[in-house]
């Protein structure tokens, strides 16, 4: 569904990758591998339509991204290095407001339940600023449970998570794949997932 042809990415005077092509069918996931600074994040931002490639193009369901931004973004869930968390809102508010802006309203109970699944019971009302590094990432990951989207693009989703949370997240991804979704992931750790496609930059 997501396919990429002859993509070239240049940053400053450095060409990060050149002539990259691949296709990602439904129910499959793609690991973007590479050492630090190889260009994984840059690739993911291009795939999400946040930045423009120097050359080449990205298509989703056969249409180029630019042609119909809104339709593509309705199908996309992107999670970057930084999470869109407001330090002074509670995890619950962060979730519901964030999703509200995208036009989803999961409802308080669903959001609270998702937070619970990620081990944040009793902290729904604590301002996010007090949360630990791992707990913040967990709040972000709750979006995966609440907002349906066939394409996930996740940049190092496993950082800062402890063993338990890594388990929860990987089960979540497996279920997403089983139900016909596709995902693009990066990680420097081993990922406890069924084998998938892989691109090395």
């Amino acid at each position, binding site marked *: 569904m997501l396919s990429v042809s002859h993509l070239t990415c240049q940053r400053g005077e450095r060409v990060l990758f050149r002539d990259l092509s691949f296709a990602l069918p439904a129910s499959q996931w793609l690991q973007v591998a590479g050492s630090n600074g190889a260009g994984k994040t840059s690739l993911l931002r291009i795939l*999400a*339509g*946040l*930045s*423009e490639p120097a050359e080449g193009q990205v298509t989703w369901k056969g249409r180029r991204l630019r042609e119909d931004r*809104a*339709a593509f*973004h*309705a199908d*996309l869930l*992107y999670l*970057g290095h*930084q*999470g*869109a*968390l*407001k*330090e*002074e*809102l509670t995890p619950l*508010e962060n979730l519901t*407001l*964030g999703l*509200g*802006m*995208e*036009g989803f*309203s999961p409802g308080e109970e669903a959001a609270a339940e998702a937070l619970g699944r990620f081990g944040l019971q009793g902290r729904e009302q604590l301002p996010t600023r007090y949360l630990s590094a791992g707990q913040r990432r967990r709040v972000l990951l709750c979006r995966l449970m609440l907002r349906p989207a066939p394409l996930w693009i996740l940049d190092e989703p496993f950082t800062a998570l402890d063993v338990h949370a890594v388990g929860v997240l990987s089960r979540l991804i497996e279920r997403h794949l089983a139900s016909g979704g596709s995902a693009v992931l990066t990680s420097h750790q081993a990922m406890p997932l069924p084998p998938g496609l892989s691109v090395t930059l």
Partner: protein
Amino acid sequence: MNGAFAPFRQAVRRDLLLAARHKTEVITALFFFVIVVNLLPLGIGPDQDLLRKIAPGALWIGALLATLLGLQRLFAPDHQDGTLEQMALSPQPFTLLIAGKIMAHWLVSGLPVVMVAPLLGVQFDLPGRSLAILTLSLLLGTPILSLIGAVGAALTLGVRGSGVLLSLLILPLYIPALIFGAGAVEADLAGLGIEGHFSLLGALLLACIVFAPWVTTVALRVALE
């Protein structure tokens, strides 16, 4: 979600909630206005006549600076923590979300200023009629300040030293609003008509409402690249 303006309302609600979470921000924008306006007599001296003459201008400039101060935080926090990225990726129209944010900015920084202006005018010994005209001109004018300011905030987003750069870009563009706004009171005091001033302010406001959110969105997309 009901109606095409749902994202607009969502964005307004969210920003108001954020503002309410630290009430200081609302109150202090207001107090900044009050203090700046009150500093003027201290710097200039207590001559009542002199003060009455400069009152409309001083109040308008105070409003302008108060607006400016809040503008730096219009998009910056959302940019830093990735919220803006998420908004740009949202299936809802980006322009509407941004218009909502601008509206919230005005509600938080412009409206309180308008409401407290008559009080300050009394301090400067302005007559009642002038007070009314001044307040009305601020009511029409402060949304212009927020709208034009948003363009500047988007252009300087993520640029270091953006706070001061923003002022440099925006203050010259504020001049027409300032002149027609502060001018209305003075024209009235001079016995001239004020319809001209107000209709020009109104036209300015309309133009800004139509174009500013759109230009802001374009600038934001550039900043996110």
